């Protein structure tokens, strides 16, 4: 059982929050995470979040879908049991396009979404994982991990001076 302590700065306004993030980072404090009820535009830049590489995952999953679909149709109708259907050649590529397209989309979508779930740790659990339940309603919460020797009062002042309406401490037992 390890426990971690966080200082939570609660904000009322997204613009105040963005400014506070910038100032906190400028002051050399590492921000653990920021929680908001909806995606805030511009937060990636101020928090230094890299652009997600999920589109690349989608592309390669889609490519797998395309290759699999083409291989499947060419193998089944071209080699395993060739038959003349409607006077078409055994490997009638134009009529393989719809299934190829559908499987490309299916694999790209599912590959990307499953990757998103895995890398973000999204899975069904029974516990409530948020640090402050208001962060899924109408508040923005900036969490800073408390390490040994961190000056709590200094952090408190820093957050409040940049517009936090509340500063709380929260311990999470893992």
């Amino acid at each position, binding site marked *: 059982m390890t426990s971690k302590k966080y200082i939570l700065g609660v904000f009322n306004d997204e613009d105040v929050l963005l400014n506070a993030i910038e100032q906190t980072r400028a002051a050399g404090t590492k921000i653990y995470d920021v929680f908001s009820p909806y995606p805030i535009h511009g937060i990636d830049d101020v928090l230094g979040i890299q652009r997600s590489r999920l589109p690349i995952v989608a592309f390669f999953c889609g490519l797998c879908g395309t290759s699999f679909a083409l291989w499947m149709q060419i193998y089944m109708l071209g080699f395993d049991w060739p038959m003349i259907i409607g006077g078409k050649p055994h490997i*009638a590529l134009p009529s393989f396009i719809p299934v190829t397209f559908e499987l490309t989309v299916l694999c790209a979508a599912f590959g990307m979404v499953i990757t998103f779930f895995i890398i973000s740790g999204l899975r069904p659990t029974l516990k409530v994982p948020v640090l402050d339940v208001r962060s899924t309603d109408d508040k923005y919460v900036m969490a800073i991990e408390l390490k040994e020797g961190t000056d709590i009062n200094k952090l408190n002042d820093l957050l409040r001076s940049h517009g936090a309406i509340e500063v709380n401490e929260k311990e999470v037992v893992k």
Partner: protein
Amino acid sequence: MQHVSPIREPLVTGGKTYADITEDVCRQVEAKPNMRWMVALGVALVFLGIFIYSVYRTLWFGIGEWGLNKTVGWAWDITNFVWWVGIGHAGTLISAILLLFRQKWRTSINRAAEAMTIFAVICAAMFPVLHMGRPWLAYWVLPLPNTFGSLWVNFNSPLLWDVFAISTYFSVSLVFWYIGLIPDFATIRDRATGPIARRAYALLSFNWTGSAKHWSRYETVSLILAGLATPLVLSVHTIVSMDFATSVIPGWHTTIFPPYFVAGAIFSGFAMVLTLMIITRKTFKLEDYITLEHVESMNKVITLTGSIVGVAYITEFFIAWYSGVEYEQYAFINRATGPYWWAYWSMMTCNVITPQLFWFRSIRRSLTATFIISIFVNIGMWFERFVIIVTSLHRDFLPSSWVMFSPTSIDVGIYVGTIGLFFTLFLLFAKFFPVVNMAEVKSILKSSTGVSHTHNPGASLHGTAPNNSHKHD
């Protein structure tokens, strides 16, 4: 700095705050079901009962319970299949295509519209599966090893393309819808008071915290899914239309079918969204989120797609004449003046004339008129599929095979039964799931209500709202 147009109406009215949005949407999820909902569910369940009985008759006694015959081999059931699939298309259009076009008004209707898509596709899938006669062998449509004694499936057939298109469409729409639901389930979970509700919504919300990193990925995933769903939705009805267009039946064998079917699908889908939204906004008091502005925008889409459909009907007629093929000409003259003339003219009236009424602003913004016209459009679109399928088939190549089709009570029972199934699912959704996408509405609230948006905290807190006084409609 975002500019606020003084002439454009805000997307969310009533001066809502973020907390108000949560409260308004979660209210019906948390409250005990009200009487109106119970009555509606009761009626839907009665129709679901009719569905179950009709399906039982179909499975026990076979397809002979239906009115179709050797000449009209596709009839009532395929009409309903195409009708339901078409209805589904509006949900994806609203959630995916309007996302790519950055149409922010979609945010308060996309959740319910996507739910409608999923339920409509479920209803649609019932028909081809039941039409198989032996639905327990439905897995034979999949490319399985031929140890079953059959050959591989025929990848040259549009019917097989349909299997792939509809199942991909269903799964991708479901995933898209669920991804959008996760943050809202988290909101409900964090408000839940009872242990059962909290656990149930905790399971559904997939450990969602609203972390900035997750939001960043969530937005990427939504955008890519929208990009994938857009060609997907167009492909689905294109492939459905190819079921007809690749055949050699006069009246079916036309190249205009794919765009004409896609426009028709969006047309009927928006009509169904309007029917549902007008009821939902009233029942759940969501008038500030689903505003007259939304209704008007959707009515404009209906006018556009309805006009495309109208032009397609006229083009078909013209091409039949211009082709010089007498069978093609006969098929179309027979549609308009033959024994099924009433179906043709119902279709023409409902689909071509009624949506043109939306050129009048007062009709476009009238809820009653919109509701009535949306029902008319759905009736018209049902007749369109009936006309295409039944009138093209009932005059076979040999006059000795000419017959009429009339549905049996089981045909009708399955059809009204799927409407019951649809509404049962939709009512359960409306009670237990957030009908409006809270997170997305919150993300557009600032720009849509006229508060300016900047990164400079000093200037940002309270911009002026130029036109923020609104009547509640």
